[in-house]
């Protein structure tokens, strides 16, 4: 139903607005979308999260500085993805070439289901704020690994290799991070949750 690639292509309007006018909101929307996909691709190709991040930022910096030159780009999605990959293992000298054919690129498997989306949308403000606040208590490494495991859906072996740790350490990092946050959920929430679950799962199974 939802494809990362298709939705990226649907950002054509934001790309065009940004190229024409330098609209900062649209720039952020583009960054927000491609940040995850490009880091995912970078990770798949063996680049660490930090290296991928640097490459993403360099790419967007280039786009920002050179948007006057990029007016002729018809397929922004191809352009961004192929530029990113080409420059991942080279000194980043981006060039405003016309886009190449889109390679057979993998889809991010992490895309949340309708139910997960529903949970995200309807989760109580309280819980969201608690988690957001406590996520910041995790170390940088922990946040990165949580992101790679839960959002990018990399497996433990991939995470171990990318972060130069053992698989056991990867397990422990995830476990410690989840435990830290799980303890923050107050008992009252759990009670309310049990009531909500029965109604929600009932409806979910009837209508999905």
């Amino acid at each position, binding site marked *: 139903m939802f494809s990362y690639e298709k939705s990226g292509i649907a950002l054509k*309007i934001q790309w*065009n*607005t940004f190229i024409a*006018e*330098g*609209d*900062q909101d649209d720039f*952020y929307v583009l*960054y*927000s979308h491609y*940040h*995850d996909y490009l880091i995912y691709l970078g990770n798949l190709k063996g680049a660490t999260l930090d290296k991928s*991040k640097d490459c*993403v*930022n360099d790419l*967007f*910096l280039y786009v*920002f*500085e050179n*948007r*006057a030159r990029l*007016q002729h780009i018809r397929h922004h999605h191809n352009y961004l993805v192929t530029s990113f990959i080409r420059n991942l293992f080279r000194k980043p000298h981006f060039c405003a070439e016309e886009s190449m054919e889109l390679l057979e690129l993998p889809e991010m*498997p*992490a895309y*949340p*289901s*309708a139910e*997960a989306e529903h*949970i*995200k949308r309807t*989760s109580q403000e309280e*819980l*969201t704020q608690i*988690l*957001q606040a406590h*996520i*910041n208590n995790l170390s940088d490494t922990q*946040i*990165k690994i*949580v*992101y790679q495991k*839960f*959002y990018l*859906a990399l*497996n*433990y072996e991939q995470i171990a290799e990318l972060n130069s740790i053992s698989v056991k350490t990867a*397990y422990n990092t*995830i*476990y410690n*991070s*989840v*435990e830290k*946050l*799980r303890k923050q*959920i107050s008992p009252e929430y*759990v009670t309310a*949750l049990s009531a909500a*679950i029965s109604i929600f799962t009932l*409806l979910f199974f009837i*209508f999905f």
Partner: protein
Amino acid sequence: MQDKDLVHLLEQESFLNYCFGRNDSDVRYWNKWVAEHPDKEIQIETMKRTVIMMAKASRETLRDKHFEELQQKMSGATVIPITKKRASWKPIWMAAAVVLMIAGTALIYRRPVKPETSHIIAQKTDVKPGRNKAILILGNGQKISLSDSGNGRIAVQSGAQITKTALGQIVYQGSNEPANSASAPEYNTIEAPAGGQWQIVLPDQSKVWLNARSSLTYPTCFVGNERKVQLKGEAYFEITHNGKMPFKVSSKSQVVEVLGTHFNIMAYDDEQIMKTTLLQGSVRISDGGRSRVLVPGEQAQISAAGMKVTRETDLEDVIAWKNGYFKFNESLESTMRKIARWYDVEITYAGNIDPSLRFGGKISRYKNLSSALKIMELTGNIHFKVKGRRVTVMQ
């Protein structure tokens, strides 16, 4: 749940796949497991929600952290201006103005700032897009506001039970045959106002999506040898197959007869042409004395001038509204009529508008009015002024 068990859960890819709904077999497996271990249900559900929220939180934290790093680089950046070799359709003054603006904003760059380049008056209360909103009018005249109703059963009519679901649909359940077949069935009407839309599941499980400023009148149960409904405005239909009871939609003088199929009818009072587009299946469309059977991909256009059948090049365009976006490929007035219905605003035209002006493009229906109009202004051919719920169009 023991900590040891918890660790093992997180180590299993299949469990995480279940939490995120990544594949059907893992989801089924773990749903079954939870059903078999009801005492563990709360812990599992808590774990699942925690993990989903952690995915979201970690993503947002990292993305924003990385974006901030990028912003710092950008504030020191120089924007390279257009060289002599530029695309000939861009005038120099526009390029220079844009470059100056970027250089200016780069210097004071902190957070994403919306530049004031539009004539649209930024209001404190921007016009919000339409949403799921409709009124159900029962046979006895009673009106029920669907958006204000809670979920669950909202009425009972002639043996049919009307329920509102969490997804915002209206579902008719109960026998398709009335207890007393001698009595005429009651008729209900669902009316979506300007700025509204609704989905209904009819007594025969057919699905109808109503667009803004549209209404559908239908019986609470289908009897006899045909299923007959009346449409004003626009709706998309997915009709269940029933060879013994063809489904008929009438709009003004036009009748569309269906056996089982997917089609869109656009028949607003303020549009001169009624358009019926067939996506799947087969329909017969009649108007006055004329009648024609359509095949998928065809569109029948009925107006005072008669009936014309064309091959619709892009079916996605016709039902774009149902999928949450506007697809424009038409005159300015037609474009603005669509905007007026969805945002519930009034359109006025200042001065003469070039009648040959055509608009093409795609805009999400869920943007605020000012965002949508701003996108249209990018074409350079049009300007808007918005005051309250009145939009003035100028060239």
